[in-house]
């Protein structure tokens, strides 16, 4: 699966998933484009593979997994700081997001 360090799970997805740690500035050839990583990411995390507007749904597995809380640019890390659940807030040991 990971000839590339990232995988796009469904052609409609606007995020790709990291399969091998990657550094900020690395260029990823995926989904017919070259994406430059805006930050370093570790395995399992998501990167935007297209520009996403605030409020827009985040698509992974071809399904909505929540919505953007701010505009996200291609190559940016997509996580608790810029997206939220449309069902139930997520929590870490230190905070709750998406309430």
């Amino acid at each position, binding site marked *: 699966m990971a000839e590339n360090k990232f995988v796009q799970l469904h052609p409609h997805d606007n995020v790709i998933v990291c399969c091998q740690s990657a550094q900020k500035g690395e260029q990823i050839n995926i989904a017919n484009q070259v994406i430059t990583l805006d930050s370093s990411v570790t*395995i399992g995390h998501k990167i935007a593979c297209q520009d996403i507007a605030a409020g827009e749904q985040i698509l992974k597995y071809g399904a909505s997994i929540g919505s953007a809380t701010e505009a996200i640019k291609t190559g940016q890390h997509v996580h608790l700081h810029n997206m939220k659940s449309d069902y*139930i807030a997520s929590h870490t040991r230190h905070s709750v997001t998406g309430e």
Partner: protein
Amino acid sequence: MRCYLRNDGSKGIRNTLVVVYLVECAHHVARSIVNKMDHPDVQLIGFPGCYPNNYALAMMKNICTHPNVGGVLLVSLGCEGFNREYLSDAIAESGRPVNTLVIQQNGGTKNTIAKGITQSQIMLEQLAQCPIEYMHLDELVIGTICGGSDGTSGISANPAVGKCFDRLISADATCIFEETGELVGCEQIMAHRAESPELAKQLINCVVKAENYYTKMGYGSFAPGNAEGGLTTQEEKSMGAYAKSGASQINGIIKPGEKPNKKGLFLMDVVPDGEPMFGFPNISDNQEIVEMIASGAHITLFTTGRGSVVGSAISPVIKICANPETYANLSDDMDINAGAVIEGSKTVKQVGDEIFELIVRVGNGEQTKSEQMGHQEFLLTYKTFDSIGPACLK
């Protein structure tokens, strides 16, 4: 597969003597008996509460008469609310040897431990007489849960279990998946796989019930480690968890402790009915494994990304690691490396076949990693369900 044939006709893949404390006050005595026996087939289980609970009673009855259980020693303080007479009668009715030791009637801690050891030794000898038979794949019940999920779980280990489930179901085995709170967000997608339009409605309803319940609890079924591993939302975790169910038709919904009434694929509705009463539905993964066992699971498939190390009393747990970095770190605890899918060296189908083959070997007596390490976790707490109570115990 080789199996143990019980007097009630059920077929088990392990031959376990369970020592059961019926209230936390009897825990030390029961644990001391198990520790002094120091035998892998003598295992400790129990219920901590003093107040009676129909769900806990039904669960304990199903667990003590599980095909993998050959005999039972009940340890009661004496004044707790657990209906030990009902439980003992139900176990005896199933043809299993059962003894009850009431600490208050046996001279206290020391004497009860000594009697417990003597009785356990006698029961172990009885267990050794259990006839060995053969069972086929279509007699197996396999459950699946996930714990410590991360962003790799839904890509490697969970769909690999899904492939394994599809293969088991086509071989006429019975498979159970669960945690309706971890299906929040994919209820509509799941409903399309229902055997009937009525079941489709029920599938959606039980996920809506879970969403309402967790919302009242103030937390979803989402742990900090999930976020550290790349998962951001409940629905993202759900889509990954859902992949464990494979692609077969969904044939029914059961509640914890209920047995599937036919072969096929079942969803376990683990979230209590009615207004939230006793707190979180399942306070940790161990409780989910126990619910699978109470519904008859011979083996539980446990997928993990962050790396859980647990096993269980009574039924073996096969751990399938989704994340190659976690596998490298915790390989002693993992039975299957689904991280190979992330690294690109294996397909999801290949890992699914590996799981399938391991199920057959574990069924034949091969120990899982958690069994080798002595993991025998057990957790049962209070719950309430509309359909679980005295009426369904008869």
